[in-house]
């Protein structure tokens, strides 16, 4: 290597050897320690590096599917922190706590470091050559229809490669699975507005009524919506300060921020929406005939009786919505997790049509012009299809990447047993999680801070201004430093190697995924914002340094076609006396579906509402708890028809007395030292009830009973004794009950 002949990759390599400083504790009488620590020099140093001064590399967050654009702060070859990319229309320079914890996925001590092969009950370390050879061997003679690949939501060039691989294998069995997915929302939106993910404009609305959409915490693209929300709350906005009403049986972070939080009886959100439409009609708003034909049955009295929301409250809500336009009505997980979830969502969508919000606060989105890289979104229903196939012994070779169904499938699906029926299971894994443990071959993955990828978000935010209706974007994910563990590989590299086994010729020009990606990007230079005459190297470097590639997308359109035809909401029935309470699995802003549970920052950052750390809990309304004789810290057993968990009771006024709530994502049996054994896994005890239209698992359809075990603990939480010991008494958490709030100033 000559003096100038180095690239960033070489530089990263060099850093891989260097930078080992041995920290010795020094506490002698001198304050400085000569000759104890090593100060390792660089071998070569690119001109943009100055020791002690950070460089920033643009990349994309991999902690959830929102796809926020980030910048990694890199100092002396180590990534130290992620920051938001200010040029991103998604997150505009901000990040969430979950995203910030991404560095802990990267430096995590429990990452899988070498390929592992199971023989019987034991695992042995093998080489990559042997691992890939083994896959080749198993695939030879296996029919395409006997091969399945399960992944999470995917997009970009890794997805394109996976698509090619599946084609080469002759398999159509790509299952895209997300444990917590807005699948019902997508279907309902598609029906009601013509688009599955329109752009929501909270910032333009004067009032937002959210039926359990936790858009500040865990819903769809929370950092993006938080920014919109900040605008929405500004009194200086031409529309004035917006009013937020949150309707949900269990208070979320968004609920805690709302002007009014309304505890609705679980599952009756659709009824309430129709009741509001009826009240709006009574208040003089003209309701389209087809809707009125359905909604007129939902008189305020009936609605109030079915939903537990007072008549006064319903009328106030209608008055608020009539007075303030445009408004925006959102439907979230809390309203959708039922057998009639799609019906609930459809009823809620009617409100947007009645209120004339479609086209104003619900805008058309745009999609990328390349279908191969457009996002494939995941859902629970695809897991059911995979599970059925496995149960029937249809699949011989199963690959899994980026998902953990053994952890997140309800026990009643018997996924683990069915998974075991496949002859050869390959897990692409960063951790030895539950699914990797059940696999035969484990391929250790690079972290998102070591790997190359492109990402196209499902929720396509756009910058303000002309052309935003056709704005689409692709973002880069690029390595920020040399690998922490040298023997891990990028998912793109593995797929490329597997493809070469099938069809060496087509891919021989690509040495690795990096060269594949680079050439794919350069081939489409013009579509990606370059000019035909641009120098390849310059274009590539500039594109990469920006991290965001704006594309002229295909503009969608939204229409107010939500119709009440076929809408049928069940009349709430009395609870089964043996399981009197409704279980609401809660999705918290930091733990989400539990895929990042081995990042200690997430375990130790207090839940925003209960302030509990490092454990699960069950939220019980103080009234219900008093009836059952439960006090805070009691270890209780929560039992459903399909299973049970034991966890600590937390008395919480922000939950409907008929419901209890346990956060999901806890209770791993594997994965790593920070996740294993912390809390209880509520996924396991869910009943297999599915949304009738989409086939999505109805998360909130499980009924439970609660019994004391006789044990009691002191809950480890941030809040002082006030919230804890007095939660059962009035005046602490709820100072003014929701229906006493004076709304005259808000209207």
């Amino acid at each position: 290597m000559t003096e100038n002949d180095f690239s960033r990759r070489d530089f990263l390599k060099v850093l891989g050897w260097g930078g080992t400083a041995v920290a010795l504790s020094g506490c002698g009488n001198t304050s400085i320690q000569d000759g104890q620590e090593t100060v390792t020099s660089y071998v070569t140093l690119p001109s943009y590096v100055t020791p002690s001064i950070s460089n920033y590399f643009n990349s994309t967050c991999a902690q959830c599917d929102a796809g926020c654009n980030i910048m990694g702060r890199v100092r002396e070859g180590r990534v130290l922190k992620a920051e938001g990319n200010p040029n991103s229309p998604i997150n505009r320079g901000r990040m969430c706590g979950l995203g910030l914890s991404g560095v802990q996925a990267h430096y995590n001590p429990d990452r899988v470091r070498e390929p592992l092969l199971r023989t019987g009950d034991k695992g042995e370390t093998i080489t990559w050559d042997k691992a890939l050879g083994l896959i080749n061997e198993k695939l030879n003679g296996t029919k395409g229809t006997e091969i399945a690949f399960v992944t999470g939501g995917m997009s970009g060039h890794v997805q394109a490669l996976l698509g090619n691989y599946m084609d080469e294998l002759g398999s159509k069995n790509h299952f895209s699975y997300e444990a917590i997915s807005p699948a019902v929302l997508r279907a309902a939106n598609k029906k009601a507005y013509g688009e599955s993910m329109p752009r929501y404009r909270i910032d333009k609305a004067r009032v937002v009524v959210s039926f359990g959409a936790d858009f500040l915490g865990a819903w769809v693209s929370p950092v993006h919506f938080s920014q919109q929300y900040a605008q929405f709350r500004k009194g200086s906005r031409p529309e004035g300060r917006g009013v937020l009403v949150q309707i949900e049986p269990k208070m979320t972070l968004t609920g805690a921020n709302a002007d009014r939080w309304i505890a609705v009886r679980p599952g009756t959100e659709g009824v309430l929406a129709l009741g509001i439409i009826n009240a709006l009609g009574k208040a003089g708003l003209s309701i389209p005939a087809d809707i009125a034909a359905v909604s007129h049955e939902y008189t305020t009295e009936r609605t109030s009786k079915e939903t537990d929301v007072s008549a006064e409250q319903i009328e106030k809500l209608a008055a608020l919505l009539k007075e303030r336009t445009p408004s925006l009505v959102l439907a979230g997980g809390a309203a959708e997790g039922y057998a009639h979830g799609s019906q609930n969502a459809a009823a809620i969508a009617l409100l947007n049509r009645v209120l004339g919000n479609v086209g104003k606060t619900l805008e058309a989105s745009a999609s990328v012009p390349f279908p191969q890289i457009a996002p494939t979104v995941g859902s629970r229903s695809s897991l059911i299809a995979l599970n059925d196939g496995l149960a029937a012994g249809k699949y011989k070779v199963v690959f899994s990447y980026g998902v953990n169904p053994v952890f997140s499938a309800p026990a009643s699906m018997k996924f683990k047993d069915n998974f075991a029926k496949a002859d050869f299971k390959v897990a692409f894994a960063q951790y030895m999680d539950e699914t990797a443990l059940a696999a035969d071959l484990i391929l250790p993955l690079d972290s998102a801070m070591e790997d190359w990828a492109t990402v196209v978000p499902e929720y396509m935010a756009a910058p303000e201004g002309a052309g935003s209706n056709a704005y689409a974007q692709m973002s880069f994910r690029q390595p920020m430093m040399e690998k922490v563990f040298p023997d891990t590989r990028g998912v793109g590299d593995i797929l490329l190697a597997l493809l070469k086994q099938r069809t060496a010729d087509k891919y021989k020009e690509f040495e690795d995924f990096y060269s594949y990606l680079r050439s794919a990007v350069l081939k489409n230079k013009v579509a990606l914002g370059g000019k035909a005459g641009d120098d390849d190297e310059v274009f590539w470097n500039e594109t990469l340094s920006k991290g965001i590639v704006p594309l002229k997308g295909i503009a969608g359109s939204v229409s107010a076609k939500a119709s009440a035809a076929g809408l049928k909401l069940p009349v709430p029935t009395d609870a089964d006396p043996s399981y009197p309470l409704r279980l609401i699995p809660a999705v918290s802003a930091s733990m989400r579906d539990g895929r990042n549970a081995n990042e200690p920052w997430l375990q130790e950052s207090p839940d925003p509402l209960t302030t509990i750390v490092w454990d699960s809990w069950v939220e019980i309304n103080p009234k219900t708890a008093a009836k059952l004789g439960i006090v805070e810290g009691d270890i209780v057993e929560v039992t459903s028809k399909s299973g049970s968990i034991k966890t600590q009771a937390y008395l919480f006024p922000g939950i409907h007395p008929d419901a209890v709530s346990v956060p999901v994502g806890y209770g791993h049996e594997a994965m790593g030292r920070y996740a294993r054994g912390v809390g209880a896994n509520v996924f396991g005890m869910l009943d297999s009830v599915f949304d009738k239209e989409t086939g999505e698992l109805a998360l909130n359809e499980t009924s439970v009973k609660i019994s004391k075990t006789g044990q009691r603990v002191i809950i480890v939480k941030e809040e002082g004794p006030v919230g804890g010991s007095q939660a059962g008494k009035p005046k602490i958490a709820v100072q003014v009950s929701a229906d006493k709030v004076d709304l005259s100033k808000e209207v």
Partner: protein
Amino acid sequence: MKCFLRSLTLLVGLFFYASSHATDALPTLTTPDDVGPVVEQPIEFPHFRHAGDAKDGGMQINCMYCHTYARRSMVAGIPPIQKCIGCHQSIESVRDKPRIQKLFEYWDAKKPIPWKKVHDLPDFVRFNHERHIQRFYFQQDRPYQEVCGYCHGNVKAMTVAQRQKPITMGWCASCHQKDHPVSANSSETGHGPNDCFTCHK
């Protein structure tokens, strides 16, 4: 914790000691007790040959030719091997010397040289090279050997560097108490900051 308290007491003590004596009775710049231990380095780098005066056979290279970050970063920086090779690949006369051979061994293997730190401040001290170089070298136009020498002593005469000054808090403060002219041609004077958080942050 005990260690921390011990060093804290020591530091606070030193600070008061230094502040009370500083302006009138500065500690001598080098006393034998202050000289740090000889630190064995992977290559016995001859500072005197590179930075020494011409009359002593040195080449009078500016410190910042190699420690190039001192003027723009907190750390002065150990030069990348590439820098050494940049010159040495065309200095045939010393190519067969053992130290140079060793240097090329590292270079050929693309392995960094594990130098030992000679001035290793504790982690709770944040010393900034840039501020000092900008002030004394660029604004006040003092000779670099003098400026670097305030803290590093007479490097011109050393092989591998050896600590010359106490580099304790009291010692730092003794200089921060002193009045220095604010620029090369000014009669106005000012002294360095004495705020805790300037160095402890």
